[in-house]
C-alpha cells in the first residue's frame, strides 16, 4: 500500500514537471499566436487586442501562475484559433484516434507475439532467414511511404478500399458508437490500421523472439521435452508464458503512447485524429490547445506506466515493491 502511495506521489510530481515544461517550451518557441492573423487589414489595435484577449500582455510569471491555477481547477482554457474549450476539441477527434491506434496496436502485438515465438522456435531455419529481414524492413520503412504504397495499390489501383477519411462523404449516424461499429467506418479503418500495425509489429516480435530464445534454454523446457509433450504445447504453455512479461509492459506503454495519435498515418489517410490537431496547434502557436493536448497525452502515458508497474507485480510475484 505504501509503495502505491509513493508511486502516486511520483506521478503527481512528473505531471507538474510536464505542465511546467510545456508552458515554457511553447512560449520560448519563436513566433506568437498573433502571427496567424497577419493580413493586409491587420491593425496595431487588433494586435494589442489579441494579446490582451490571449493574456499574453501579462508577464510570463503571471501567465504561469494563472495557467497553473487553472489547471488545478481542471480548466485548460480556450483554443486561440478554434475558440472552443480545449477538451471539447480533443474529445471531438479522440474516438477516431483510439479506434485507429488501439486496433492496430492490438493486431501488431497479437501477431508479433505469435510470430516472435514461432521464429524463435525456428531458429536457424529458412523461415528465420526470410522472416527477420522482412520484419526489420517493415519496421524501418517510413510510415508515409508504406501508407502511400498501400493507398496506391489497394485504393487508387484496385479500388478495394477508400482513399481517405474515416467515413464516406455525407454519412449520418445516430451516435458515435453506431459510427465506430459501422461497416463504412471499418472499411475506412483497414488501410491506416494495416499501415500502423505493419510498423508497430516489429517491436513485440523481436522482443518476444529474444525472450523466447532465453527461455528455451531453461531447464523446465528441457523437462517438458523429456516428458514428450507436443511441441506446440511446450511452445505456448511453457515457454511463451514466461517470455511474455516484458512484452506486456511494452504493450501497456505502447497503448498509453497511442493516445497521441500518429501524425504521419493520419495525414496520409486524411484520418481526423488527435495527431493532426496537435500539429496544427503547435504550428499556429495555439498554446492552450497544444498544452492541453500534450498534458492529456502525458497524463494517459503516466497512468499507463503506473498500471504497467502494478500489473507487473501481479503477473510476476518475483517483482514486488517493499
Amino acid at each position, binding site marked *: 500500500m505504501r509503495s502505491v502511495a509513493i508511486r502516486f506521489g511520483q506521478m503527481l510530481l512528473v505531471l507538474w514537471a510536464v505542465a511546467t515544461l510545456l508552458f515554457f517550451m511553447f512560449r520560448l518557441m*519563436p*513566433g*506568437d499566436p498573433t*502571427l*496567424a*492573423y*497577419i*493580413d*493586409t*487589414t*491587420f*491593425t*496595431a489595435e*487588433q*494586435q494589442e*487586442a*489579441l494579446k490582451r*484577449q490571449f493574456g499574453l500582455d501579462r508577464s510570463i510569471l503571471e501567465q504561469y501562475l494563472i495557467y497553473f491555477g487553472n489547471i488545478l481547477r481542471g480548466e485548460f482554457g*480556450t483554443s486561440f*484559433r*478554434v*475558440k*472552443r474549450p480545449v477538451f471539447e476539441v480533443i474529445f*471531438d*477527434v479522440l474516438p*477516431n484516434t483510439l479506434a485507429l491506434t488501439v486496433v492496430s496496436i492490438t493486431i501488431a502485438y497479437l501477431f508479433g507475439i505469435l510470430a516472435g515465438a514461432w521464429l524463435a522456435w525456428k531458429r536457424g531455419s529458412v523461415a528465420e532467414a526470410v522472416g527477420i529481414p522482412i520484419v526489420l524492413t517493415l519496421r524501418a520503412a517510413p510510415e508515409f511511404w508504406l501508407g*502511400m504504397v498501400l*493507398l*496506391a495499390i489497394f*485504393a*487508387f489501383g484496385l*479500388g478495394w478500399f*477508400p*482513399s*481517405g*477519411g*474515416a*467515413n*464516406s*462523404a*455525407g454519412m*449520418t449516424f445516430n451516435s458515435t458508437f453506431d459510427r465506430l461499429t459501422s461497416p463504412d467506418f471499418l472499411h475506412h479503418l483497414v488501410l491506416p490500421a494495416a499501415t500502423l500495425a505493419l510498423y508497430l509489429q516489429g517491436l513485440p516480435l523481436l522482443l518476444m523472439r529474444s525472450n523466447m530464445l532465453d527461455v528455451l534454454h531453461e531447464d523446465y523446457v528441457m523437462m517438458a521435452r523429456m516428458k514428450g509433450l507436443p511441441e506446440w504445447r511446450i511452445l505456448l504453455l511453457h515457454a511463451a508464458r514466461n517470455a511474455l512479461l516484458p512484452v506486456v509492459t511494452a504493450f501497456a506503454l505502447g497503448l498509453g503512447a497511442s493516445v497521441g495519435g500518429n501524425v504521419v498515418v493520419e*495525414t*496520409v*489517410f*486524411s484520418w*481526423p485524429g488527435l495527431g*493532426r*490537431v496537435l500539429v*496544427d496547434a503547435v*504550428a*499556429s*502557436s495555439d498554446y492552450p490547445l497544444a498544452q492541453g493536448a500534450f498534458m492529456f497525452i502525458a497524463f494517459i502515458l503516466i497512468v499507463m506506466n503506473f498500471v504497467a508497474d502494478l500489473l507487473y507485480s501481479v503477473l510476476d510475484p518475483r517483482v514486488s515493491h517493499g
Partner: protein
Amino acid sequence: MKLHRRAVLLSVTALMTSASLLTAGAAQTAGDPIRKIVLATAAQAADPQEFQAAQLIAQEWRKLGLEVEVRGFPRPQLSDLVWYNRQKWDTTMWRMVGRPERSDPDELVYNLFHSSTAEKGFNFVGYVNKDYDAIAEQQRRETDPEKRKVIVAKAQTMVAQDAPYLFLVHPKNTVGYLASVIKPASVVDQGGIGIRNFWTFVGAEPAGTVKDIIANSTEALNSINPLYISGSPDNWITELVWDRLMRIGPDGLPKPYAAKSINWVDPTTLDVTLREGMKWHDGKPVTAVDVIFSFQSTMGDESPMYKPFSSNIASMEKTGADTIRFKLKEPNASFLISTIAKINLIPKHVWEPVIQGLASKPENAESYQESQPIGSGPFKVARFKLNEEIVLERNADHWQAPKMDRFILRVIPNNEAGLGMLRRGELNFLSDYRGDPKLLTDLSNQQKDIQVASTVDLGLRYVGHNLRRAPFDDQAFRQALSTVVNRNLIAAAAWNGFAVPASSMISPALPFWHQGTPPRANLDEAKAILKKAGYELVGNKLHYPAGKKETLQPE
C-alpha cells in the same frame, strides 16, 4: 609564411593601384563594400516553390557583385521576423493570397504602401512617400470608376518606379472537377478567383444521378461563425450559409444580392432596398432590423476581425419596411466591396441574446459556435465536424436555390490522396490542391471526365525590401535588383509554368485596374543603373557610392 603573405599583399596592392589608375581612381573614392545580404524565405519543406525562387533570385543578384545568403525559416518564424522585428532583416520573400474582397484595388493600394501602416501594419517594408500617400487617399475617395482607374494606375506606376517590392509572379490556381457529376456549362469562372467560387457551388447543375458536390480542403476548419474571419475554407462555408447585401460577381464587380437595389444618394449616403420574401433557415423573415443589427454587430468589439470593414459607417437608419439608409463618415470607393459585400447578414433573434451574454465576459462573439448555424443563404448547415467534414443542404426556400442537393466539404490533407479520390469519385470537386499542378493536368488527359481549370488569381509572390536598411533605402539599388531578375525563368522553373510574371500588386486577373508590364531581365541595364547611382565594382565586390559607410552587420 609571413613573408609570403606580405609578398602577395604587396602585389595585390600594386595591381589595385594600377587598376585604379586606369579607372581614374575609382577604387579610392568608392564607399564601403556592401555587407552580405540575407534573403529570407520560407524553408524548402514549408514552400519549395518560394525557396527555389529565392535561390534563383540570389543567383542573379550575385552577378551584380553582391554576397547573398538565402536563409530559410519555418513560416511562423519568418512572419515573426518580418512583422515584429522590422529593423532586423534585409529582404524577404512574401506572398499574398487571392480573396474576393481584393477584387477592389483599395486594400492593395492603400494598406500595402500607405505610410500609416508602416510602423505596425502591412507596410512592413517601411515605404514612406508623401506623394504616394496622397494618391492612395485620393483613389479611396474617388467614386467615379473611370477617374479612379487613372489614379490607381498612377499608384501602380509610382510603386513600380520606387520598387519597394520586387514583384515576381502571380501563381495560377489549379483545381479540377468531374464533368460526369457537374455540367461544365454551369461552372462559373470568377475573375481573379477561379472556378472554386460561390457562383459555381450555387449554380452547379447535376450531369448525372449524383446530386452532391463533394469538395475538399487540405486544412481543418477553425469555425463556422458569421462574425469570425477564421480561415479560407471556413469562408467558403460562411459565404454559402449567410447571405450578404451584395456579392462580388463573376466579373469582379459588386452586384446586389440580398439587396434588391443599392443607390448612392450622394458620396456619403447609400440607400439599400431589401429583396422581398427572404427567410432565415429557421423560417423567420429577414427584416431591415436584422440588417442593421448585422452591421452593428461588427462595429463594436464583439467581432474584431470584421471591425475594420465597417469602421466607415457613421450611422444606419430604417427608412421604410424594406429600406435602410447608410451614412458614411467619408466617401469611400471600395465601400460596396469591402463593407456591403463583406458583412454577413445574421438574425437578430439568434445573435442579440448571445452578444448581450458576452458583453460582460472576456470572450467575444468569435468564440460562440452555434450548434445549428442560422443564416439566410442558399445552403443550410446539415451537420459539421470541423476536422473531418461539413455537410450543407440546399435551401429550397431561397430565391436562388441551388440545383444540387448537398455541398460536402471534406478535410483531406494528403494532396496525392485528393487526386486519387477525384479519379475514383470519392471527391467530385478538387477545390483545394497544393501539389504539382502538372499531375492534375496529366490526370485530366488520361481520364476525360476530369476537367481542370488553371487560372491566374489575385494571389501574388514578391520580394519585400526593408527600406529602413541600407542599401535597400536607395531606389536605384532596388531598381537594379528588380531589373536583373528573370521572372519568366522563375515562373517556369520554380512554379513549373503555373504562374505568370508580375509587375504590380494588382493582378492581371483584374484587367480594369491592372497596369504595367513585367520588366525583362537585363544584367547590363542593372549594372548601368548601379553605376549611374555611384555604386562601384571593386574586384568582384559591389561597393556603396563614394563616401557611404556600411553601418550594419549581417544579422
